[in-house]
């Protein structure tokens, strides 16, 4: 599969990045103990005390130039995490550090500055484009609202259209309903790139596309990443796609991080029982690897009242008494520091009867 090669354009940023502030070792994004609890609406006279713990203490980092994949079941807090990072919803607690600068605090970078550096591509390619605007105007909106003159913003929009493989002469003045799903998602990518971001959050961005188009858009994303030295946060429930694009993978369960590690390591030697269940639930093309017992059954528990201790224990084959009492911390494996797991069965001296799999 080859991709459209558009000639280098001097108006668009190229590799070495003058915007780098923290140096190559500083992670692009550092997230610590991020929390969002949504109150369940009570009535005027009986205010409800219940909260949905959508994201409950999530910490991770994204290195410069890498792709961090985030996987997990529906409702595990993947998309909420993305929206919290973008500040589309306000976090209740936690710190976000962008390239060394804490976000939204004195002497840090303000939220709108963060949003300029970090952009997002949504899942629904149609809903995320204004049906009343020609697509070039949708792309130009961001730069224009940050003070770029209209003609320059439109010029940038046309360049970007070419960059995502849509001929601006044919597409610039079209409306979203005149485009196919794959074309629309290319427009959404162009719109995100219009702000010249350094980090792009792809929230299920290829999930709604059919397989052949999905592959094209994925390859486009990979080539754009190289050309524009981008960093990706790739959210998906498709484990194969995540394996294909990611450098590291983070597994979320019910608003918390279950496991995080380099992609080869995580796919070959998953430590957390949930990760193992997820990976074995992938459809296989090999009939000899047919499974008849579902690796995991039932729905995740209600995030309003998550289970005590380890949240996965209600569905976990290895659950013991200690799992109900103590919440397992996300700890690095002694033999493999880049690989972190939140599971008593893996951690030494946790009180769990045994390490299930040798590390």
């Amino acid at each position, binding site marked *: *599969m*080859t*991709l*459209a*090669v*558009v*000639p280098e354009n001097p108006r668009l940023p190229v590799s070495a990045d003058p915007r780098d502030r923290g140096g190559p070792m500083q992670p692009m994004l550092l997230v610590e103990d991020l929390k969002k609890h949504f109150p369940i609406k009570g009535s005027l006279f009986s205010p409800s005390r219940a909260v949905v713990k959508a994201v409950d203490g999530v910490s991770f980092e994204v290195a410069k130039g890498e792709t961090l994949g985030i996987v997990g079941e529906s409702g595990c807090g993947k998309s909420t995490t993305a*929206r919290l990072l*973008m500040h*589309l919803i306000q976090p209740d607690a936690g710190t976000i550090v962008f390239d060394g600068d804490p976000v939204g605090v004195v002497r840090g970078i303000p*939220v*709108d*500055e963060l*949003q*300029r550096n970090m*952009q*997002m591509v*949504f899942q*629904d390619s149609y*809903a*995320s*484009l*204004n*049906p*009343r*605007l*020609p697509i070039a105007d*949708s792309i130009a*909106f*961001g730069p224009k*609202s*940050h003070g770029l003159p209209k003609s320059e913003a439109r010029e940038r929009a046309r360049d970007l259209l*070419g960059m995502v*493989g*849509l*001929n*601006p*002469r*044919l597409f*610039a*003045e*079209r*409306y979203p*309903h*005149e485009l196919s799903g794959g074309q629309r998602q290319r427009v*959404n990518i162009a*719109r995100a790139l219009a*702000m010249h971001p350094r980090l792009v959050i792809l929230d299920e961005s290829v999930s709604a596309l059919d397989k*052949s188009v999905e592959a*094209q858009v994925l390859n486009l994303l990979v080539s754009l990443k190289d050309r524009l030295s981008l960093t990706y946060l790739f959210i998906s429930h498709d484990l194969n796609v995540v394996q294909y694009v990611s450098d590291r993978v983070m597994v979320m369960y019910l608003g918390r991080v279950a496991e995080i590690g380099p992609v080869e390591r995580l796919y070959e030697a998953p430590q957390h029982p949930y990760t193992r269940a997820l990976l074995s639930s992938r459809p296989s093309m090999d009939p000899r690897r047919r499974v008849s017992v579902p690796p995991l059954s039932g729905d995740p528990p209600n995030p309003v009242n998550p289970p005590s201790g380890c949240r996965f224990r209600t569905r976990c084959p290895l659950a013991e008494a200690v799992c109900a009492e103590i919440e397992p911390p996300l700890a690095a494996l002694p033999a493999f520091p880049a690989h972190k797991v939140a599971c008593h069965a893996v951690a030494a001296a946790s009180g769990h009867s045994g390490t299930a799999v040798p590390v």
Partner: protein
Amino acid sequence: MAMAEPAAIRTVSEVLNAGRPARAGVSRSYWAGVRRRLARDRVTIVCAAILFVILAAAIFAPYVTWADPYKTSMIRRLLPPGSPNHILGTDELGRDMFTRLVYGGRISLFTGFMPVFVATVIGGTLGVLAGYLGGRSNMLIMRVMDVFYAFPSVLLAVAISGALGAGLVNGLVAMSLVFIAPVARVSETVATQVRNEDFVEAARATGARTWRILIEHILPNVLGPILIYASSLISVAIVLASGLSFLGLGVSPPNADWGLMLNTLRQSIYVAPVNAILPGVMIFVTSMCFNLMSDGLRAAMDVR
């Protein structure tokens, strides 16, 4: 699977349009589609034509009529339609019905448009703000609107114009106030729907200011439904204005106004029923046309 380089492909339209500006005939804009669908809708076109005739007659009243709308004649009272010189007959004071109906359109149409226009601007702004901002602003604005909603519109209009005193201007003010609440409620509903769409999130994610998002992303998407609703209010406004005049709160005699004419001719309904009904027919036809036209507009604009 190879995708060719975009610059290398030249489509037929590109070749044909070489050298012309980039728009190159591909754009079938939303409004072009609306216009095309409207052109196919016969009911809407007929209604628009009728309204156009009524409006044009009202504006150019002195040129399409030949009698004085205020000239009374005791010997020519309540002539039936079809009488010489009075094609629609005369009223209870011997004034020419046709002339008075045409002149009456001036005030009646004005009292139909004006309050709706004012209410759409004020109520639309309030409603869109409430819908987009949500939370407490929404609560504050919409609860105030609910207070207005608690009263039947006719009663509220009568009460307000009664309190302000009779007269055309006070009647207009009263009716504008009455229409603000329903327009605000419709606008709020539409704006709330649009605000939750991904493209608004995407716009917010660029860090753009609220007013910019409102103008470029919210407004174009809420304007259609709000205008359709407002156009359906015009007919209500005409009827309501006629009602106020009928009660003696709006236009005062001897001015010609459909509602007022209906009121004064009421006593003659047994003597000259056709004459008495004519102003009512005008009100009915006009409001009906506005209603059908707004239905047609909705159908034409309601495509995704």
